[in-house]
């Protein structure tokens, strides 16, 4: 069954004879629940093992099986691992979306499709490769019911041939993927090999894209942000995890359960932790606060709807001054929104979560390495400042595969903050819970169970004086609120500092945070190369803002705030914080389609606003 596809006229982009090496995006369109995740991971790993920087992004529906799913692998020799807007190579496995998938490609792209779909009729400016998957899979998989699962591995072999990915690396990746199932590994390997052999015998490569071995991934790891966070929390000394399942945060706790069971069981077989699935997010944060009050390093992980539910308790923790760590793996809101798409839409509501004058510390990781390292920072800050710390990750970071240097073992010791024990109380005789003895706004606390008659104090969300007694006195209320503010101001000097990259005498500044970093980094290079626009760049890593943020805005004629929400939420927070005369220097670049931010969108928007 040889392909009869003719090289179309006009499909010149990839036909010029110039090989495009290690710079492409491959999109695999499948149906969720069809086992394509394994195939995509194998493809990703095989390229990674050849030393080429990669990233893998899963665009999936809120559904268990039967709806369309797209997986995009980007390979890039320069290390750009944000989303690429254009798709260069489409693997069309889903009949329902195939037409749209093909129609949306730019001219010159390549399409690999299941023969019965006959997609080559749709356009004449693309390169088509047709593969009879069912026939191929029948020869390697006698068991009919397994064929559906193995079918996807056939395209891995075909793609390997067309893009010159070494089959030795494909085999290695399959063996890793099915490490504990030799039979499954063999079956999948046979399927991939059959695809490869078919392609070799029947398809004439016309695509100019190819993968060549290089050495940019040596020693690196591939991991998703939620797993990185789970690992980080384990090394942060977390002892209590309470949670309620919600996409896209569930895998954070589920991975943590695995890690904790493996590495945090004592020699007596007993757990040095407790992980409890709560009845809802209200209970999840309530348990975090109860545990934090009683001295545990406690945390939960959630997403927007959970954040909304936690609002009341967040105010209690702020006002009664109780530590805890909340991971918000942001997804698209409002309400249920798009539960499986990415966003940075919880920034503003989380900063001020709850009624009254409430504000919270937020840490914002951009990378899997920061998901790991900020876990320890978050717990230390929470206990140092006796307050909740929100770690604002997102679906793109949390659930997608990212290449990274291996994580560094935490160097800062675990800081339990100002906690008085029995011996301290024997010396002091007593203490006032909310008295600001050190001028930093942070009082001393004791833990329930401390064996001293003066250890106890009364924790309440109602008005209180510095001895934690009930008080409705105006001066007690005001003094307490001012002290809480002082504490927040102190935190400015302790939260992670921004990362600043200076260009050459740039008049334009860009501020971004979280996963917007990847699109912005690549966009800055595009701006320099294509438009000769120099930019300075500040990557925010925390709220409250540190001194450097104010200076950065002051140093530039105009500063673009790039973020993934409609209402320019971080820009709004900045506007509240900077000198009024500087507010006119801020410009917003918003991205809100639920897809990870790509560089081209930033470049286009910024150049348009610059009048280029």
């Amino acid at each position, binding site marked *: 069954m040889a392909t009869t596809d003719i090289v179309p006229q006009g499909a010149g982009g990839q036909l010029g004879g110039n090989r495009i090496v290690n710079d492409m995006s491959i999109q695999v369109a499948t149906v969720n629940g069809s086992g394509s995740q394994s195939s995509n991971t194998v493809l990703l790993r095989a390229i990674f093992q050849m030393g080429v920087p990669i990233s893998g992004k899963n665009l999936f529906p809120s559904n268990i099986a039967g709806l369309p799913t797209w997986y995009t692998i980007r390979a890039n020799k320069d290390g750009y691992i944000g989303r690429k807007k254009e798709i260069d190579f489409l693997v069309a496995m889903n009949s329902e979306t195939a037409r749209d998938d093909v129609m949306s490609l730019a001219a010159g792209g390549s399409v690999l499709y299941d023969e019965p779909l006959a997609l080559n009729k749709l356009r004449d400016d693309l390169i088509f490769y047709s593969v009879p998957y069912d026939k191929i899979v029948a020869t390697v998989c006698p068991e009919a019911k397994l064929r559906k699962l193995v079918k996807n591995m056939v395209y891995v072999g075909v793609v390997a041939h067309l893009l010159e990915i070494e089959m030795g690396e494909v085999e290695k990746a399959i063996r890793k993927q099915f490490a504990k199932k030799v039979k499954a590994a063999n079956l999948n390997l046979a399927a991939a090999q059959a695809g490869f052999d078919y392609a070799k015998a029947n398809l004439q490569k016309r695509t100019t894209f190819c993968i060549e071995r290089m050495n940019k991934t040596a020693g690196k790891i*591939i991991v998703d942000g939620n797993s990185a966070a789970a690992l980080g929390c384990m090394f942060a000394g977390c*002892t209590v995890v309470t949670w309620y399942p919600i996409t896209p945060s569930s895998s954070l706790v589920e991975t943590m359960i695995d890690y904790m069971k493996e590495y945090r069981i004592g020699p007596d077989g007993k757990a040095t932790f407790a992980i409890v699935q709560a009845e809802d997010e209200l209970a999840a944060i309530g348990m975090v606060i109860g545990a934090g009050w009683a001295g545990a390093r406690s945390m939960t992980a959630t997403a927007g709807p959970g954040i909304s539910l936690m609002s009341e308790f967040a105010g209690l923790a702020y006002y009664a001054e109780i530590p805890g760590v909340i991971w918000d793996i942001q997804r698209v809101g409002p309400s249920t929104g798009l539960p499986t798409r990415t966003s940075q839409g919880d920034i503003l509501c989380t900063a001020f979560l709850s009624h009254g004058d409430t504000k919270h510390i937020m840490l914002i990781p951009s990378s899997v390495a920061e998901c790991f390292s900020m876990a320890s920072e978050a717990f230390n800050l929470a206990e140092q400042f006796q307050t909740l710390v929100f770690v604002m990750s997102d679906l793109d970071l949390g659930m997608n595969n990212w290449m990274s240097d291996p994580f560094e073992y935490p160097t800062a010791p675990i800081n339990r903050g100002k906690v008085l024990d029995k011996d301290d109380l024997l010396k002091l005789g007593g203490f006032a819970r909310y008295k600001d003895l050190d001028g930093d706004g942070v009082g001393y606390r004791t833990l329930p169970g401390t064996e001293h008659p003066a250890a106890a104090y009364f924790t309440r969300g109602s008005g209180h004086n510095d001895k934690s007694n009930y008080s409705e006195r105006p001066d007690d209320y005001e003094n307490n609120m001012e002290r809480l503010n002082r504490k927040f101001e102190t935190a400015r000097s302790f939260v992670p500092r921004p990362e600043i990259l200076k260009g050459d005498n740039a008049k334009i500044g860009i501020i971004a945070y979280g996963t917007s970093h990847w699109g912005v980094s690549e966009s800055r290079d595009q701006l320099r190369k294509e438009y000769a626009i120099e930019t300075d760049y500040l990557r925010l890593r925390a709220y409250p803002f540190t001194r450097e943020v104010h200076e950065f805005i002051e140093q530039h004629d105009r500063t673009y705030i790039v973020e993934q929400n409609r209402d320019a939420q971080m820009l709004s927070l900045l506007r509240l914080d900077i000198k009024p005369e500087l507010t006119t220097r801020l410009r917003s670049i918003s991205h809100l389609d639920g897809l990870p931010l790509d560089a081209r969108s930033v470049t286009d928007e910024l150049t348009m606003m610059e009048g280029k």
Partner: protein
Amino acid sequence: MVTTPTTQPKTNRIGLSVVDYKGGKTTLCAGCGHNAISERIIEAMYDMGVQPERVAKLSGIGCSSKSPAYFMNRSHSFNSVHGRMPSIATGAMLANRNLVALGVSGDGDTASIGIGQFVHLMRRNLPMIYIIEDNGVYGLTKSQFSATADLGSKLKSGVLNDLPPIDTCGLAIELGATFVGRSFSGDKRQLSTMLKAAIAHHGTVMLDVVSPCVTFNDHEGSTKSYKYVQDHEETLQEMSFVPHFEEINVEYDAGTTTSVTMHDGSHLQLRKLEEDYDPTDRIAAMKRLSEAHDKGEVLTGVFYVNTKAPSFIDMLNMVDQPLATLPESITRPGREVLEAAMEELR
């Protein structure tokens, strides 16, 4: 450091006097049932010789939830948010399994806004004592019906309650609480005995204590008034309690008295006032509660005890030392663990 004045006449088994269990001055109304319950808690904790520093007092919002400020000042206390005390208690017990958790809630705090957390607390069998100070009415917001108000009960304004009550005891038994009873704030002896048994129990103790609101719900036509309860109380058992540190020197007749051996070795003796009532029979307990409801009785006593079921803390298989105070050497794995985890991801 505990200082014992030389003139102190009476101390308990750990050398503390009853003053060491006192709290602040109550700000509740004179005659409020809740104050009597606070007194009984003080007595029971003193009599059982519980170290006050080991006790964590927990509450939600409402008149009842203020009351932890009025007993046991030497215990940590957490007056949290409305209806959510169970999650705070759960978190605290996860952090420190050695605490004696004592929760005080109200009927609004439990049966309306807090019913979600209440039912899940019951099914976890978390070791804690959960007291509902039950007056059928919202006091702090000045007299609205709660979800435990009986059908046909009347507010001062003349408004009749037209919805059936939630029986928190029946619910607790059905869901898995392992010590469930009802008492009356005016019944010193019964409530004190029940509280002591509660302290001896390891698992969720749910005590619904009818505690009249003298300001808003103690009038003619209310089913939660002192008079109504006195007129309609049906008591299942006459109970006595022998703590583990005292010898049993009263004989009892196995035919008329059920003796329950509590987790700490104490004995709760229940002399049956109703023949054949077996407090270890879950189904019978729910049936009897249902009958009481139909007959308009205020049924009191220990409805159900199960000393065999594992508690939530048992099920979590945690180390003996409280998680809260585990040192870094235990909670942060070594470099070799990170290296192994990195290798898996390469």
